[in-house]
């Protein structure tokens, strides 16, 4: 970029007497002031606020940078009624260095008479340049008009007038709307804009609004406009109006207040209501939080904990209180502003909560009149699963069938088998209950209670609840919730396997981001649950049972074998998005985190090279969990010389086998002619059982290093001194059979190591 030169003959150069060149101006200190920008809205959705607040400072930062506006600190805040940006010590002058912009070609820019064409003038207009700032530049492509824009300095206040509306335009929300003729879109209507740079009001416009140095307080009930003279006085003024602008401070106050109220009630806030997002939601539902304690009728304590919490948190956004692990009939509410008659407000909230709980209790009793749960399950024929797959009753029958191969692979006891069969039968029964119709998110939970109340074994009841897992960690971050029991894990797997296979059978498969039936999550869930319990996942046996049922049995699925292959493949492919290295098997502890779709947080662990997955998947993988064990073993061997040797052996044997067809199944030791091949055979003959045994014992690391150590040297010698592809065909076939025996000894049991990238890295040192 040329700077000083481009100023010659242009506006800046024409200043003549001004000795200060733009370059020297760039070096003088830039004064600063604080910017306050407030977007006043009607009530924004609580769930959108954290995202909007975060975007506001991120987007502001990127715009300031792009616009050459240095700033010391950017903060953003939000309440339901306002989004606020405060940029501290923002430079008072925008100093843009000079720049050159290429325009149209010379030919297109001037007509025969040498007059500028419409194309050139249009270009200059769009760039805000003048003819005097142009020049002709020759390049390989020909001659072009360039606009040489001189360095410029513009008062920040002027830049902000166009920058702030752009900033609003960059904010994204999950759903946006229009509200007036301007066609402006936002999460909810924007009703005012306040923009102050230092004490200078910025008159920017957006839609039909123009910014003014005025904000609104008092909520929608008692709206008052207040003049704001400076960014500093704004925060003081809001505080005086009772508004806690800073979301973190607001969250802190609310947590403190509900904790205090719970203590006064002789208990503590139910921890789930804090962790399940209610605290976060309430923080973004109010800007002037005021606490209020209340009670409900203790008759409703006979309802299960989950139902009580759902009624309080979901329907009324109040915090439940517990003492000694039991919910007590009290709650802590957070109001907006200070109602004049808090007692009346409390009475109404109590009345409504009581009415809701009365409704729940009515459903509870109504459902109990229909118990035992087994009887409720009979109504499942009226609940559709999919029109081509029949009802939930039919699904339950399939679950029972699918449970058999799994029970066998897991070597369940007779008692456990009985529990699993019963759990399959009852898993979906609560879908016909009035309670689940009212609280769909309590499916499984309600089933658990109804199973207990029907005198079903605890293992069955737990399994009913657990079979909908895995579920995201209740607090958002953290490991997913997984089944803790054996029967629950089994039921979770067969249910998801049935769903996955059913839709695949109908030709419905996830593609790209299209996955309306949640099949990707189901497949991922199968892998996670099976790994956590660390039991076999026998894909072939599951499929053999599945294929004898709908939709594969009838004409609904013409290509059953193809479906089986696709299901199998799809499940195995989930390993690529699994969070490697996996958590140690077993239910996750609270300390373990980071189990999203993407691998994360592996610290000093071996890298989750996907080539290890490639290698294992190229070998037989009927048992998915065993395949995962093999992947982990290979990953743990990263850098071990034994792995490199084993990979070399697999690669060399594969290459030679690829070159010529093998027709002889067995090595004939009598026909081994050369010493190196006899030696190789001896190593094989006396050690192959050891390798096979280690693999069978799932000591894959040991099996791999042993294999490498055993065969690497003798194979090297063999290739140095013996030619495999000799014209004597019986001899050649015998040598190939030897290669095959060594190759498959490993690849049929563990992995095709020729897929490892460490081999490629070696070839190009």
């Amino acid at each position, binding site marked *: 970029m040329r700077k000083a030169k481009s100023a010659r003959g242009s506006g800046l150069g024409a200043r003549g007497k001004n000795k200060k060149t733009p370059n020297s101006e760039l070096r003088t200190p830039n004064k600063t002031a604080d910017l306050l920008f407030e977007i006043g809205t009607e009530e924004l959705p609580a769930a959108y606020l954290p995202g909007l607040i975060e975007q506001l400072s991120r987007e502001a930062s990127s715009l300031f940078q792009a616009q050459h506006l240095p700033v010391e600190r950017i903060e953003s805040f939000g309440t*339901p009624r306002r989004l606020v940006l405060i940029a501290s010590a923002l430079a008072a002058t925008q100093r843009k260095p000079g720049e050159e912009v290429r325009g149209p070609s010379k030919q297109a820019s001037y007509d025969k008479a040498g007059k500028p064409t419409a194309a050139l003038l249009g270009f200059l207009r769009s760039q805000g340049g003048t003819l005097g700032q142009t020049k002709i530049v020759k390049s390989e492509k020909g001659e072009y008009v360039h606009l040489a824009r001189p360095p410029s300095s513009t008062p920040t206040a002027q830049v902000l007038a166009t920058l702030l509306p752009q900033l609003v335009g960059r904010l994204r929300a999950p759903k946006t709307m229009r509200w007036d003729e301007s066609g402006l879109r936002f999460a909810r209507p924007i009703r005012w804009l306040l923009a102050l740079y230092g004490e200078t009001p910025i008159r920017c416009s957006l839609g039909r609004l123009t910014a003014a140095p005025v904000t609104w307080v008092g909520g929608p009930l008692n709206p008052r406009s207040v003049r704001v003279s400076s960014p500093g006085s704004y925060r003081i003024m809001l505080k005086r109006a009772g508004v806690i602008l800073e979301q973190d401070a607001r969250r802190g106050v609310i947590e403190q207040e509900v904790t205090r109220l719970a203590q006064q009630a002789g208990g503590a806030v139910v921890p789930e209501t804090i962790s399940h997002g209610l605290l976060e939601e309430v923080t973004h539902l109010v800007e002037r939080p005021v606490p209020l304690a209340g009670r409900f009728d203790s008759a409703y304590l006979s309802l299960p904990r989950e139902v009580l919490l759902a009624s309080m948190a979901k329907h009324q956004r109040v915090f439940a209180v517990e003492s000694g692990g039991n919910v007590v009939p009290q709650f802590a509410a957070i109001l907006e502003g200070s109602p004049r008659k808090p007692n009346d407000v409390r009475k109404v*909230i109590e009345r*409504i909560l009581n009415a809701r709980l009365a409704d729940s209790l009515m459903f509870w009793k109504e459902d109990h009149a229909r118990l035992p749960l087994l009887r409720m399950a009979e109504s499942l024929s009226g609940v559709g699963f999919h029109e081509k797959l029949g009802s939930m009753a039919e699904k339950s029958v399939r679950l029972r069938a699918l449970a058999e191969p799994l029970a066998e692979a897991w070597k369940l006891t007779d008692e456990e088998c009985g529990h699993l069969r019963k759990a399959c039968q009852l898993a979906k029964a609560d879908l016909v209950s009035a309670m689940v119709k009212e609280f769909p998110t309590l499916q499984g939970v309600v089933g658990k209670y109804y199973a207990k109340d029907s005198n079903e074994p605890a293992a069955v009841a737990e399994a009913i609840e657990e079979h909908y897992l895995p579920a995201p960690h209740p607090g958002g971050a953290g490991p997913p919730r997984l089944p803790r029991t054996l029967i629950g894990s089994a039921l979770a797997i067969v249910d998801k396997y049935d769903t996955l296979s059913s839709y695949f059978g109908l030709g419905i498969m996830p593609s790209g981001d299209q996955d309306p039936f949640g099949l990707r999550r189901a497949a991922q869930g199968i892998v996670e649950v099976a790994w956590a319990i660390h039991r076999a996942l026998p894909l072939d046996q599951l499929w053999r049972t599945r294929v004898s049922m709908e939709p594969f049995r009838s004409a609904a699925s013409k290509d059953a074998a193809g479906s089986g292959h696709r299901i199998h493949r799809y499940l195995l492919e989930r390993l690529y998005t699994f969070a490697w290295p996996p958590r140690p098997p077993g239910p996750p502890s609270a300390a373990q985190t980071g189990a999203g779709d993407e691998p994360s947080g592996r610290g000093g662990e071996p890298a989750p090279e996907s080539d290890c997955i490639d290698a294992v998947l190229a070998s037989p993988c009927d048992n998915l969990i065993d395949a995962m064990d093999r992947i982990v073993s290979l990953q743990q061997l990263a850098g071990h010389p034994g792995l490199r040797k084993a990979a070399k052996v697999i690669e060399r044997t594969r290459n030679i086998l690829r070159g010529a067809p093998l027709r002889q199944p067995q090595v004939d030791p009598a026909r081994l002619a050369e010493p190196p091949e006899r030696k190789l055979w001896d190593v094989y003959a006396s050690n192959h059982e050891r390798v096979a045994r280690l693999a069978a014992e799932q000591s894959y690391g040991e099996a791999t290093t042993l294999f490498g150590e055993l065969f690497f040297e003798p194979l090297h010698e063999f290739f140095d001194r013996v030619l495999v592809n000799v014209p004597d065909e019986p001899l050649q076939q015998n040598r190939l059979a030897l290669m095959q025996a060594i190759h498959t000894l490993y690849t049929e049991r563990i992995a095709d190591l020729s897929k490892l990238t460490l081999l490629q890295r070696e070839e190009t040192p």
Partner: protein
Amino acid sequence: MQFQQLIRTLDTFWEQRGCVIVQPYDVEMGAGTFHPATFFGALGKRPSRAAYVQPSRRPTDGRYGQNPLRMQRYYQYQVILKPTPDDVQSLYLESLRACGLKLEDHDLRFVQDDWESPTLGAWGLGWEVWMDSLEVTQFTYFQQVGGIDLDRISCEITYGLERITMFAQGTSDVYKVAYGPKATYGDLHLANERESSAYNFEHADVAFHQELFAKHEQDAKRLLEAKLLLPAYEQLLKCSHTFNMLDARGAVSQSDRPRFVLRIRGLAKRCAELYLEREQTHEKS
């Protein structure tokens, strides 16, 4: 303030703000949104302001008269303002004050509500308005109706009349609400709640309603062919109510539901298109 006075107060309030006070539509419907004044009023560019009471039938919400907050038939007061005035939120609050509510005494909230009527192909964004944690109003800025992006944004305000009177009268039981001179809400409605709940949940003939649905749907299509807009739309309303009845009888499975909804939505879309087509030819002539 008695129930009937509340209606009169709202009528007066909105009449003074330029609304036509139209009357309840005489076909069963689940909500005031189905009233032609809203469904068609929201479409097109022509400004429109209307207010009306609409008896709303929600067969699945019946509680045999035993729940003080839920009924299978209740009254909505519906206001539709097109285009939306900038101060619509304060207008709404003013209307509550006109009804005798001392808002400063209460905890009033605007809680996110992404409103959607899948059967009408309509959606909008707005809030449930909570008074002391009870939803008393739905407040929506319409974005689409009949699957069509709206030319002008309407604001729909739907008051829960029973709940607002309960606040105004300080009653906790809807059936004890004073309706008019010497008559409670219960006097006028309790028997019907009991009997209709029994009908909706126990006695309604499923096969008969299934047949009704098919016939109304067929008729709506025939009338659309004949370009008889309002008669066709009435058949759609009947389809919608019949679907709700089947739902209350537990005769709609999870997989049936989307298909029923799609069938009704298809009709709604054609009605909306026919209406706009009319409006355009009307403009030209």
